[in-house]
């Protein structure tokens, strides 16, 4: 079914823009609803997926604008503006790097790991984590940065190879436009 096969990939696509898991899910759900509402007026022989992707892209940028977080420069550094690669994969494939990341999460000092997991896997905001653990938001920020710093060191050899590809891509695009 369309919804079930595309949902995860589209959430990931939206998440890249809005950087908030619940918002990403909401946007994807709303997009399916508006697809449903328009089902009589749109040409379903054309790719439904690209229709959905376009709606999600627009909604995500609107969300960023409404929340004053829209910055096209940084989105272009991320390679997602103006949305040139609008083809989210249906299945989010577990890559080799994923195992390494899991391992490096486990290696984190206990408090650091707790904060990281609350933020990334339980989707708590920094303020919520601070309240829950009775610490300051500054501490949460510092611990999150420490966690990522550790993962970056552990994964240095993997990321460089992947990034060469991305940078080359950005370079080509800059040259083209």
């Amino acid at each position: 079914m369309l919804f079930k096969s595309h949902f995860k990939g589209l959430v990931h696509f939206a998440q890249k823009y809005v950087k908030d898991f619940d918002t990403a899910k909401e946007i994807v759900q709303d997009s399916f609803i508006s697809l449903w509402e328009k089902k009589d007026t749109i040409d379903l022989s054309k790719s439904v997926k690209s229709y959905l992707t376009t709606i999600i892209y627009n909604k995500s940028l609107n969300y960023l604008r409404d929340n004053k977080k829209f910055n096209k420069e940084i989105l272009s550094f991320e390679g997602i503006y103006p949305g040139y690669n609008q083809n989210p994969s249906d299945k989010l494939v577990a890559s080799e790097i994923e195992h390494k990341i899991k391992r490096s999460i486990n290696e984190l000092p206990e408090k650091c790991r707790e904060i990281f997991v609350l933020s990334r896997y339980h989707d708590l905001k920094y303020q919520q984590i601070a309240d829950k653990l009775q610490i300051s938001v500054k501490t949460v920020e510092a611990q999150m940065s420490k966690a990522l710093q550790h993962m970056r060191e552990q994964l240095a050899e993997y990321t460089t190879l992947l990034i060469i590809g991305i940078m080359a891509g950005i370079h080509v695009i800059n040259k083209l436009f």
Partner: protein
Amino acid sequence: MNQQSTYYNELIVTYFAGEASEEEIAVLANWIKASNENLRIFEEYKQIWDTVEIDKINSNVNVDEEWNKISSKLVDTDNTTIIKNNNISSKSTPIYHLPIFSKMLRIAAVFMILAVSAGAIYYFLKQQQPENQHVVAQNTSIENQLPDGSMVTLNTGASIDYPEKFKKNKRLVKLQGEAYFNVTHDQSKPFVVTADDIQIEVLGTSFYINTQAANDKVEVVLTTGKIAIYRKDKPQEKMILESGEKAEFSKLEQKITKIENNNENYMAFKTKKMVFTDTPLSEIVYNLNKIYSTNILIKDKSIADCKITVTFNNQSLDAVLNVLKATVDLNILKSGKSIELSGNGCK
């Protein structure tokens, strides 16, 4: 780590966590812009963050649950009840209330895309066509030097395309057939081989590719270093290969898989070094035909399955045949372009 880089490392993480303010995002954007090194650091964080998000979505999203949440709304609309969407969608819906405008936009978008792709095609044609090199190994395997000093050994029948001068940011070549690459190291200029529907990206290393392996496959074997393999249409899904590892791409399934390399002789066409352990004569002959570009035929079925253990090290074809002759008791008859082997069973 100095104080300043601590600040920016924190800022990057804060940004990806969706906690950065408008001003902070602008500060970060300026910092990224300031140097390639900064962009690289940002990319590294993004890569890790992205992978964590994929892992999270995979383990936390229950698609059935999500479906239940919205399926009731879908039924409602079908009964033409107007549902109030939450603020996010209602903010963006106005666009869709203006069908004519949206249609014009769509037409405009199509023209935009056409114009851009025409530009892109022109750009690529202009960049590549006039100075393209095409090298074919017609009757024998050949060694060929590429503009950056890298060496490629093409087996008989293989061909390679590359520009007279590589571009500034990438070394692009296109291979058909069987070849062995020895790529000179250049950190700033990845070496990318297009082989059928996949691409192999390296900085500097040596590896083997065969775009016409058995069962409609592309084979890649890495001798030293590290390479990334991906489908041309999915460059973000990279498979990393390390020294001694082998991957194959099935053209039918469009899938890349890592497999064990149990063919020691994969680069024999280059080195003429071959190791056979209890190998049937028929298989040895098959390999010799490939490596020496010959047409050796086995006349007597009784000798085809004779098992032979032998090592050849860059020997001439005659020397190789003499060794085989002594091992299995063969008669060798050269007639025109082919060589016929006959005998009476195994020794």
